[in-house]
């Protein structure tokens, strides 16, 4: 089998592993973040998590209005859809985002709210009579997202969705480890070899094997 070589053209950076890589790709998000950065890094992680756990079982939203929450919930459900396996909805991603914006990602919140409003306005303008993105059929939602998938707002929600799906459940998302389950990550404290398929029958390192 010959491999597919993909040359990706995304304007991402090339550093090895980048922190907070692109949560705030949008200029406004970045500028907003700059204005408020004192709260960007959490001072008490334990308190943050305790609040997250409360938020998970709460019936009220900490940051979003119920209308905003409905849009975000529909959006994240299209980013990681539920099918025969759980998606972002079952993983509690919308709750995670709500909590993040109210707490450890508060600097991003105002710009995200603006982006969300703009998203809804343009969506309704394109769908006469619709009450909002959340009320569209799934097919309509997908068709609309194909038009806006490269916007900074969508990008930000996409990245928050990933964090909500795969961060420690203590932060309110990745409910019951469903995100980790989806990708096949075992949350264990320690492992023993062999770790994967290809190292099972490794005969041992032989420096001479490479010499010809």
């Amino acid at each position, binding site marked *: 089998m010959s491999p597919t070589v*993909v040359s990706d053209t995304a304007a*991402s*950076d090339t550093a090895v*592993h980048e922190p907070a890589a692109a949560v705030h790709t949008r200029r406004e998000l970045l500028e907003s973040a700059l204005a408020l950065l004192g709260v960007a890094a959490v001072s008490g992680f334990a308190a943050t998590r305790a609040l997250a756990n409360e938020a998970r079982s709460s019936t009220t939203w900490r940051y979003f209005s119920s209308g905003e929450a409905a849009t975000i919930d529909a959006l994240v459900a299209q980013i990681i859809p539920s099918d025969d396996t759980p998606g972002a909805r079952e993983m509690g991603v919308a709750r995670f985002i709500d909590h993040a914006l109210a707490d450890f990602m508060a600097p991003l919140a105002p710009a995200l709210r603006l982006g969300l409003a703009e998203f809804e306005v343009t969506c309704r303008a394109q769908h006469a009579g619709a009450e909002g993105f959340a009320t569209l059929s799934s097919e309509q939602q997908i068709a609309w997202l194909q038009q806006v998938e490269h916007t900074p707002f969508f990008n930000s929600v996409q990245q928050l969705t990933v964090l909500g799906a*795969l961060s420690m459940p203590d932060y309110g998302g990745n409910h019951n480890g469903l995100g980790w389950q989806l990708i096949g990550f075992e949350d264990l404290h320690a492992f023993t070899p062999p770790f994967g398929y290809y190292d099972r029958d490794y005969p041992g390192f032989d420096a001479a094997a490479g010499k010809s």
Partner: protein
Amino acid sequence: MSAVRYRDSTVVDFVVVGSGAAGGVLARELSTSGFSTVVLEQGARLTPADFEHDELKYWFLGGITNNDGRSPQTFRSDPEATAKPTGMRPALWYARTVGGSSTHFTANYWRFHEIDFIERSKLGAIAGTGFEDWPITYAELEPYYSKVEWDIGVSGLAGASPFDPPRSRPYPMPPLPVKSSGVLFERGARKLGLHPFPAPMAINSKAYRGRPACINCGFCHGFACEAQAKSSTLFNMIPEAEATGRCEVRAYSYVVRVDTDARGRATGVAYLDRAGREHFQKARAVVLAANGAETPRLLLGSASSRFPDGLANSSGLVGKYLMMNYSARVSAVFEHELNEYKSVQVTRVIHDFYDADPRRGFYGGGGLDARIGPQPAMWAQRLGQEGPSWGAAFKARLREFPRNMIVLGHGTSLPVATNAVSLDPTVKDAWGRPALRVTYKDHPDDLANARFMQDRALEIMEAAGAQRVTRAPVNEQNFGMHLLGTCRMGNDARSSVVDRYHRTHDVPNLFLCDGSSLVTSGRGQPTMTIQALAFRAADHIARFARAGEI
């Protein structure tokens, strides 16, 4: 914890600024040599119980690294432009905690090669750069590389790479267990006639010097090791220094100034405690090991009427020649699961392309390694930038996680004078000190070399039978974690900041030893060399102190 406590007013033999890879070694070596030593660390002192598998905290919320709210940075690629605040993602990333970035490093510990120290003589000058030979050779540093391997604790296999420089001792521990990424990388590389070898890692493959063997939890890079199997100075050098009864490690001590007397000698350092109160620790000699960003920042911030351009800066080179190395990446997906999230990040390396080759048409060389791609949240963030980012197609890609690995091509950075850390003229940190300003633009050869290394990585993954290989774009860097070259060593006071013994040319009792001392960048993985330099520097500094020559 520290058994001994010194008063600020006590004139200790040495004050060491920074407790990381270099500072930890210097503290241990100077205190075991009989000198009273105070180590000042701006960050907290954490214990293994504080360290968790928390990606959000460590990678996205600045858990132990730069907190933008308190320590902002600015960045520009054009030295004429006004630098802009970086926001939550800093330009230079390092850990602020006792143990420094040795707490959260990947622990790749290959040695520099003989050529790294004499490359300018071999290849000639490179226009527009400060490309120079080192004032020391590999042979002079070799005993200290061995000391790092045995005192810090490095796993590896001597003689496994035909490109390895000479060594006086084998590794103290065998290599760590190979991972699937290592097996595939080895398979692909050998098909191409290359020479893969077990990665030298500063992680215990067996119980060693009171610390346990690695439990293969997988959370090394960006995380601190709760098993204490990673050879961070927090777990070896720092406690050994404290055990002498002569060394005090003071956390939450942010050094803001090195003061000098009428004769131009350092008298000690001013620092702020956790409450922001200023103290002054007196010392007979000052050793800065605060890393390649903070050491020059501190010198520039210590300007006085006698030293108007910053302390020890008669050459004008303090902060200049910043080098970050370049890591070009490909990711690959295979048919079966690799489960790279388990165990250490790297198990196989090649050095076939280490040396520069003028026939390539550019200066540069590097090493390639096979590794995890990384842990889930960071991996998935990147995934959406490299292909479908939502919907059923994205979900299908997410499920490839266990079948994914990456290869990194670690390469050279040329020393360019305009690449620098300096003091931002307007932005201040939470203590009112000028923020760190970073100016960086990769030399065209660095980018050409990165593309070359990426091509080699891609060939290896294809030869290994990958189903799909994806290149990460090779763009100019605005983010780095190797902080090198900013107070370079040299014999000539006009073209270097410290001499071959890490003593500043300008202030006889002020020494600098960390990534800032490097003259050239190596090919990535600088910590091993930084620590070898620290062991060597400590030997000489102790010798000078005993002889009354400080």
